[in-house]
C-alpha cells in the first residue's frame, strides 16, 4: 500500500522532500515506474516469442542449420538456391494462382451477400448468423468435410453424374485442385468479409441513396456511384486481408491434398513447412519465410500508400 501511495502525485506532494528527487523518485511520482512494471510481462513475451524469433528467422535465412548440425554462415546462398529451385517457383506459382482465383471470388461473393443482408427483412439475422458458421469452424474440420464432398463417391460427383457431366476430378486433377480449394475457401471466409462490408454499408447515410434516386439514378448507378465509393475503406480492408490470408494458405492444403496432386497445390507456406519440419533444413525454410515476409510487406505498404492518397 505504501508504494502505491507514493506513486500518487496528490499524496506524494504532501510529503516533504528536501533533496532534489532522483530520476527513479520522479518516475515513481509521475506514474511511469508503475507503467513500466505493467508493460514488463508483455515486453518480455514479445521480445522472446515474437520480435526475437522474427529477427532470428531473418538471420537463419543466411545460415545453414539442420537440427543436429552446427550453424554455418552462408550469406545469400539459401536465396540463390531458392531462386534456382523449381520446387520453390512451383510453390510461388501455386500461391499466386490460388490468390488470383480465391481473392476476387471471395470479395465479390462477400459484397453481393452484404448487399442482400443490408435489407431489413424478417429473419435477416438468422441468415447472417448462419453465414458466419463456417468462419468459426476450424479449417481442419472444414477440410475433413469438404474432402468427402469433393471425393469420388461424394455428393458433388453424385449430382454431376446424375445430370451426365460427371464425375469430375475435383481434388485429383492438377487443373481443378486450386479452383476447388478456392471454392471451399469462399465458403469458409465470406461470412467474415460480409460482416465487415455490411458494417460499412449500414454506415452510409440513407440520404445519399435517396438523393440519387430522386435524381433518377438506376439501382446499378446508385451502386457504382454512391455505394461503392462510400464503401471503399471497408472494401479495401477486406481485399488486403484476403490477399495476405491467401498468400499464407496452408491448413486446407495440408489436410485436403497434402500439396498434390503432383505438387499442383504445393503452396509457399507448405514449401516452408516441408523444408523446415520434414527435411529440418531450417536455414532454407527461413529463406522462404523471408520471401513471404517481403510479399506481405509490399502488400501492406501498398495498402498504406493507397490509404494516404485517400485521406
Amino acid at each position: 500500500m505504501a508504494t502505491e501511495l507514493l506513486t500518487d502525485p496528490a499524496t506524494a506532494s504532501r510529503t516533504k522532500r528536501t533533496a532534489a528527487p532522483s530520476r527513479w523518485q520522479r518516475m515513481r511520482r509521475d506514474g511511469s515506474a508503475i507503467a513500466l512494471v505493467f508493460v514488463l510481462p508483455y515486453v518480455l513475451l514479445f521480445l522472446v516469442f515474437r520480435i526475437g524469433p522474427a529477427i532470428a528467422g531473418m538471420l537463419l535465412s543466411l545460415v545453414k542449420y539442420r537440427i543436429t548440425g552446427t550453424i554455418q554462415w552462408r550469406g545469400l546462398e539459401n536465396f540463390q538456391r531458392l531462386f534456382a529451385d523449381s520446387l520453390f517457383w512451383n510453390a510461388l506459382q501455386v500461391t499466386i494462382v490460388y490468390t488470383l482465383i480465391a481473392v476476387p471470388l471471395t470479395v465479390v461473393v462477400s459484397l453481393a451477400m452484404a448487399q442482400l443482408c443490408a435489407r431489413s427483412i424478417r429473419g435477416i439475422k438468422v441468415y447472417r448468423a448462419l453465414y458466419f458458421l463456417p468462419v468459426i469452424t476450424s479449417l481442419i474440420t472444414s477440410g475433413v468435410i469438404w474432402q468427402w464432398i469433393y471425393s469420388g463417391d461424394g455428393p458433388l460427383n453424385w449430382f454431376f453424374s446424375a445430370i451426365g457431366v460427371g464425375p469430375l476430378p475435383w481434388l485429383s486433377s492438377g487443373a481443378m485442385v486450386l479452383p476447388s480449394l478456392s471454392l471451399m475457401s469462399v465458403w469458409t471466409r465470406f461470412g467474415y468479409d460480409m460482416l465487415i462490408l455490411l458494417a460499412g454499408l449500414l454506415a452510409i447515410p440513407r440520404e445519399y441513396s435517396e438523393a440519387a434516386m430522386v435524381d433518377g439514378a438506376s439501382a446499378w448507378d446508385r451502386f457504382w456511384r454512391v455505394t461503392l465509393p462510400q464503401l471503399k475503406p471497408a472494401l479495401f480492408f477486406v481485399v488486403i486481408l484476403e490477399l495476405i490470408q491467401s498468400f499464407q494458405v496452408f491448413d486446407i492444403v495440408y489436410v485436403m491434398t497434402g500439396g498434390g496432386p503432383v505438387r499442383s497445390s504445393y503452396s509457399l507456406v507448405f514449401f516452408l513447412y516441408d523444408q523446415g519440419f520434414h527435411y529440418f533444413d531450417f536455414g532454407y525454410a527461413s529463406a522462404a519465410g523471408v520471401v513471404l515476409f517481403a510479399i506481405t510487406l509490399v502488400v501492406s505498404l501498398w495498402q498504406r500508400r493507397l490509404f494516404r492518397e485517400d485521406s
Partner: protein
Amino acid sequence: MRRRLLPHLPLALVAVATVFPFYVMVVLSVQHGRPLSLPGSLLPIHIDFGAYAEALAGSDMGRWIGNTVAYSGISVVLVLVFASIAAYAFAKKRFFGSKVLFWTFIAMLMVPYHLTLIPQFILISKLGLLDTMTGLIVPTLANAQALFLMRQFIIGIPDELIEAAKIDGAGEVRIFFQIILPQCKPILATLGVFVFLWHWNDFLWPLVATRSPGNYVLTVGLYSLQAKDVSLAVTMAAAVITFLPILLVYLLLQRYFVRGVTMSGMK
C-alpha cells in the same frame, strides 16, 4: 405474398449451401457401419451413435479434448490479463519509449507468423518445452492484436474517472482492478471469444509443438485420425466433437463475435 418471399430466395439458397457441409458432417457421423451409397446416406433413416463411441474409445480423443480446453482456456485468461495490464499503461501513462514500444508491437502484425515459426520451434526445443503444454501455450501469449484492441478501448475511458479515484487515495493497482477492468467488460468478452476461437482452431503451431499423440489438440488429432484408416463415420463424429464446443460458444455469445469482426474491420 410473392413480393415478400422473393428477397428470401437468394438468401435461402446461400444459406442451404452454407449449411449443407455441416449437415453432411452430422448425417454421416450417425451412419456407423453402413455402406456408403448416395443419396440414401444423406438421409438419416437409421441413427446410430456408435461412431462417437468408437471415436472416443478408440483414440486419445478424450485427452485431445482436455488438451484443447487447457490450451484455449489458459491462453484466454493469460492473454486478457497481460494485454489489459499492458494496454492500460500504454493508453493512460506516458513513459520513456512508450510510443516506440507500442508501435513496434503493432508493426509485428506485418511479419507473417510463418517466419517466426521455425525460431519459435527451435526456442522451445532448446528450452526442453517441446511436446509440453507450457511450450504450446507460452509462445502464443504475445498477441499484438489483443494489445491493440485493448488499448484503443481503454483510451476511451475518461481520465476523470482515474483522477477521481486518485484523489480518493486509490493506488495504481487498485485503479486498474476497480476502475479500468470493470469498464473493460465488453472488450474483454469480445477479445476473450476471439482468443478462444483462434486457439481452439489453431493447427500449425500445435502441429509442430506437439509430438506424442497424447499431447495433441483436437485439430491435430482430427488430422491424425483422418490420415489413419478409420471409417468415414468415425472421422465425421470426431469432426462434430471438435466443432460442437465452438458452436455452443457461438450460440451463447454471438454478438461478441460480430462485434469482434466489425471492430477489426474498422481499424
